[in-house]
């Protein structure tokens, strides 16, 4: 696909999403769409570290939790306006990400995944047990909302943020930094051998992905009005990984499609009720075995094949 066409597709996608509040008559679908857009932010962040850099981080939901709790608690204790606490949440998350990323990025592959997972477990344990601050498992309710809780307005806020952050992710991916991240995924030793300090770039990707997650968490908290530690458990971190894999890791459109899938798929599978977890796991296993390049990857391959046929039939 050439550049203008790509931009055109993105604009059409943005415009059709922007019309959703007018088109959706069932308000519940609008609710889900807002969640999906929040997950777009989450998945774009996850894609930076997982898709581009090749490090599967399982602490996404934990960072989302740090963003959600810090925004909520800053609002409660310092009486800051909500928009300000939402803006501060990614910064707080970045501090935690620096502290956790430095030790965990010393190990590679599976071990990185396990260590980040341990961090997610620690975050949840602390959220549960530090009751004075977090109110424990009961969670915090009545979190202030923006614009008196207007769903339509919040939809547009989240849509614009998701679009901007997708653009930012695309810019990072196309920059020299993005190229180095891709190179790290392919052969980290080689990157080191030509004199590039890979750890700086890995830490950068890790922290930026955490900031995405922190912002997503804050947006989630002020949308739902309620948070508790369980929401930010390992299961949700796995959802973020699933979103990236299903959509297409290392692509910009992938996380967008993946985010909508992980939010809407459980709703579609609702008929399966208690089999949901099994089905979900099965989809993840099958997708990884048979479609490791994700939906976007499959589409790209199909388009390439089609256009090749066009050329042949023209000739």
């Amino acid at each position, binding site marked *: 696909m050439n550049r203008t066409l790509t931009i055109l597709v993105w604009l059409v996608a943005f415009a059709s999403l922007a019309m959703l509040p007018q088109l959706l008559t069932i308000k519940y679908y609008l609710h889900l769409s807002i969640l999906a857009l929040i997950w777009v932010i989450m998945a774009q962040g996850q894609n930076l570290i997982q898709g581009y850099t090749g490090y599967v981080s399982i602490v996404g939901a934990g960072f989302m939790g740090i963003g959600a709790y810090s925004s909520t608690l800053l609002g409660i204790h310092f009486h800051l306006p909500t928009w300000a606490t939402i803006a501060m949440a990614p910064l707080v998350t970045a501090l935690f990400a620096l502290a956790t990323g430095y030790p965990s990025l010393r190990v590679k592959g599976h071990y990185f995944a*396990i260590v980040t997972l341990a961090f997610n*477990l620690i975050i949840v*344990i602390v959220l*549960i047990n530090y009751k004075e601050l977090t109110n424990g498992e009961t969670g915090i309710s009545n979190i202030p909302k923006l614009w008196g809780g207007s769903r339509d307005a919040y939809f547009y806020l989240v849509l614009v943020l998701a679009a901007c952050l997708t653009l930012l992710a695309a810019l990072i991916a196309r920059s020299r930094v993005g190229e180095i991240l891709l190179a790290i995924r392919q052969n980290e030793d080689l990157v080191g051998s030509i004199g590039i300090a890979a750890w700086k770039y890995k830490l950068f990707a890790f922290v930026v992905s955490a900031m995405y997650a922190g912002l997503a968490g804050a947006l989630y908290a002020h949308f739902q009005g309620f948070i508790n530690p369980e929401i930010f458990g390992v299961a949700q971190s796995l959802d973020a990984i699933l979103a990236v894999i299903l959509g297409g890791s290392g692509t910009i459109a992938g996380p967008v499609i993946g985010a909508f899938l992980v939010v809407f798929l459980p709703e579609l599978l609702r008929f399966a009720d208690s089999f949901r*977890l099994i089905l979900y*796991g*099965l989809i993840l*296993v099958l997708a*990884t075995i048979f479609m490791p390049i994700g939906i976007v990857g499959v589409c790209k391959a199909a388009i390439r094949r089609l256009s090749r046929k066009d050329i042949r039939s023209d000739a």
Partner: protein
Amino acid sequence: MLIEILQQTINGLAIGGVYVLIALGLTTVFGILGIAHFAHGSVSMFGGYLTFFLVTSQGLPLIAAIPIALVVGFLLGLLIEIVAYRPVRNANHINAFIVALGLTMMVEGINLQLFGHEQVVIPTGLSKVFRLGGITVPELRIYVIIAAIVLVAAMMLFVEKTKTGQAIRAVAENRDAAILMGVNVKSIPLIVFGISTSLGVAAGIMVGALFAIAPGIGEGFVVKGFAVLILGGLGSFPGAILGGTVLGITESIAAGFISSAYKDVIAFVVMILVLLIRPQGLLGRSP
């Protein structure tokens, strides 16, 4: 104070035994196949659930239920290798790990579906308590510790002394050379998965008898298992044994003296510290 430390050390030995068994399974799978078998915890807990089911619903004596669960575990291990991991053998290692995550979700879902949400305790009927000085030792803990030692010893003997064990070590050492020497590299992963899963099931039964099995605890155990590997050094048997025992005792003492709510945090902090100071693990070879 000293008595309290001794008491917690003995408590820690039992849980340490569980960690060692889980870690041995993980370390063999990792050593041979390079797979971080994340579903190991959930599969182990499946074994615990199964034993509970056989004892309570089917009325089997525990002594009969345990071998059945171990055999089922072995078969389950074979199935997992063939269906889930074999297809991604030659793909990127990340893919194998994501398959493992999906598998975890499936096994957790199956556990919920078959055995429900309630936490279960395997009835053993072993309720005697020995007193030595000021220390109390429940009979059950002693059996658990003995069983763990026997299983670990058996595993060591198998890997060190038998022909199959040699083949396993050969594949771990150098896969290509092993193929050239006529080792059947198709059957080795099967055997490894079968045995590892059996060991995991044994650990699951111990957890069910000592504490309780509930949805979601498998994840905690598998992460502890990996923490043990990191503590002891990858692919190292003595490392796994030392690491598991150290983790069990540390955790138990920390729970007794600092805070039981944060005991898991302490285990993970130890793991992260080891990574920072000695990334190759306590007994690992330096890279």
